[in-house]
């Protein structure tokens, strides 16, 4: 890889526009997401006591962490300008392997957890390889692998069930300095992102998402970028699956599909561009909080819980519409 970090960064800069309007357009979605979250918390707080406590933060983060992990992988893929539908199958597969293979012995749990993470990484890398080698669209390859992984999950465990050891279930309740382990994971994710986006590969992924042709011309191996991007997405999906089993205590061959759209939605609501190159994990995490708190809101407002997907879908569409229109405006300026 002969591309220098400065070259890649210059590519990103030139696309996002140096003038102040580009600067505002880049950050507006994130600011809007923060305001949306504040409004939701305000409404939630006025119906429910104890919203502004550490306990509530611990609880909500625990509820949102599966989506946050899946969303982290999806954010990386979206930054690359792709999409990963296969996390639906990967999350299902991860939970059923965990629920059928874990025993009380920590050694076995460690072994199988590593195996699940490695599987996620491997399958993801395979997605990336197929996309590059066969010159296929990402959604098509990952749609196919979603079906395959979901099918394998169903072969391993035809219906919801299985079990994990009791101590594994207690993971989300571990506390350090008053903060639960999911909150520490959240901080860990932010730290990871802060490190990742300034690494060579992080910058290369972002540059490739901004402009694949110019990235290729400056010596980036697109195949390698794809393998790494989708590999990371698979890894995070496997992590999401493992975390999910600490919450549900069981495996489900169909649960993964419930995270496909929300993972994209969390990222888009948080200002990650669907067209590649732009975004920040902080936005995705805010988006995941918004989607999770809508569930709480639906509960305290005493409306049917079935409204939650409707509300999430509508918020997603509004965010996408806003970002598409902004994208059009930005492109119009560039032309």
């Amino acid at each position, binding site marked *: 890889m002969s591309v220098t970090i400065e070259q890649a960064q210059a590519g990103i800069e030139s696309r996002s526009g140096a003038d102040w309007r580009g600067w505002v357009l880049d950050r507006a979605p994130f600011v809007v997401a923060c305001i949306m979250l504040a409004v939701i918390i305000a409404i939630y707080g006025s119906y429910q006591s104890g919203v502004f406590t550490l306990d509530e933060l611990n609880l909500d983060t625990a509820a949102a962490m599966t989506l946050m992990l899946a969303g982290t992988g999806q954010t990386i893929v979206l930054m690359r300008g792709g999409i990963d539908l296969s996390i639906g199958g990967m999350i299902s597969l991860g939970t059923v392997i965990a629920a059928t293979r874990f025993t009380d012995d920590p050694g076995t749990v460690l072994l199988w957890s590593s195996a699940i993470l490695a599987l996620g990484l491997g399958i993801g890398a395979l997605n990336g390889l197929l996309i590059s080698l066969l010159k296929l*669209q990402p959604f098509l390859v990952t749609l196919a692998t979603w*079906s395959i992984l979901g099918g394998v999950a169903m072969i391993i465990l035809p219906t919801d069930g299985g079990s994990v050891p009791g101590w594994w279930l207690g993971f989300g309740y571990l506390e350090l300095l008053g903060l639960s382990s999911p909150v520490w994971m959240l901080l860990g994710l932010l730290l990871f992102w802060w490190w990742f986006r300034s690494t060579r590969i992080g910058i290369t992924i972002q540059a490739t998402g901004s402009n694949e042709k110019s990235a290729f011309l400056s010596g980036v191996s697109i195949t390698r970028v794809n393998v790494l991007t989708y590999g990371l997405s698979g890894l995070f999906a496997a992590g999401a699956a493992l975390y999910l089993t600490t919450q549900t205590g069981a495996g489900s061959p169909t649960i993964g599909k419930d995270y496909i759209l929300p993972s994209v939605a969390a990222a888009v609501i948080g200002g990650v561009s669907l067209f590649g190159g732009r975004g920040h994990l902080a936005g995705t995490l805010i988006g995941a909080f918004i989607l999770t708190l809508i569930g709480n809101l639906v509960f305290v407002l005493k409306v049917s819980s079935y409204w939650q997907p409707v509300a999430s879908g509508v918020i997603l569409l509004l965010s996408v519409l806003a970002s598409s229109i902004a994208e059009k405006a930005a492109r119009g300026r560039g032309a």
Partner: protein
Amino acid sequence: MRAFLARNRLILLAYLGMLLLLLITALFSPGFLSASNLRSTVVLAAFVGIVALGQTFVIIGGGIDLSVPWVLNSAAVVMALLCAGQNMPLLWVAPLMLAGGALVGFINGLGVAQFGVPPIIMTLAANVILQGLILVLTGGSPSPTAPDLIKFLSVGRVGGIPVIALIWLALALVATVLLSKAAFGRHLYALGSSPTVAEFSGVPTARTTVLTYVISGLTASLAGMLLTGYSGQAYLGMGDSYLFTSVAAVAIGGASILGGSGHYLGTVAGALVLTILTGLLPALNLSSGALLVVYGAVILVTVSIGSEAFAGLGSSLWNRKSREA
């Protein structure tokens, strides 16, 4: 003749694959080629084929419609609720459901064509919203039984031929005329090959795109109503498998998923291939999980064959063969 063969290579391959599959299946389960079994295969394939009709149009135009599962399911559930087992209400319920499906398609198309929302996101969001709305509407409980007329249309027979096969045949004729003879078809292929070129050549790209999603909404809701007749009642999740099967049928049928090529006649073969495969798996003692694996593998393999990477290889082999012949 040779030009015809070359142009429709993938469609012919799909039919060839279907015949091969029929033979293999007949070897594994000798009763498979009986009239009654073939009839039930065609009936099941018709549901896939009808949903995949709309999907074919969308994919040729360069998009994809992932909202078919819950457009189908919504039409089925609402139709069953409104009719409450009676035939008469169908007079206004059936057109209403088709209009509802068309409306969802219209909104999908508008989002894609007018606002530049990626098709996957637009249609997945529509799918989730519809799913939520139907759950709110039904509270998760199953709906009343299907009206007798719907049952007749989906499992009845006229002179030994399943009624739904006739419906499918009629739809296939309409689709063929639209694709091969109508201006809409020419616009669609132009749009799928290159939206920019189509735009500059005066093709009404936005209108054409919206129309493809409208057609997909129409066929999905039609299939939903008919499927209610087949299963006797509408239930939640009845459309889920049609997401993969409709895309797979189009892929097997040889439509390039990048748009611009393919034909519904290929999709018909695709729907039959998938249904025969479905029938083959129980004979081999395989589970529904294995079926999902097969769907995924089939999508991957067939799409690879049609992809750029293989196109060069395939056509050079083909040309050499036809030169030698």
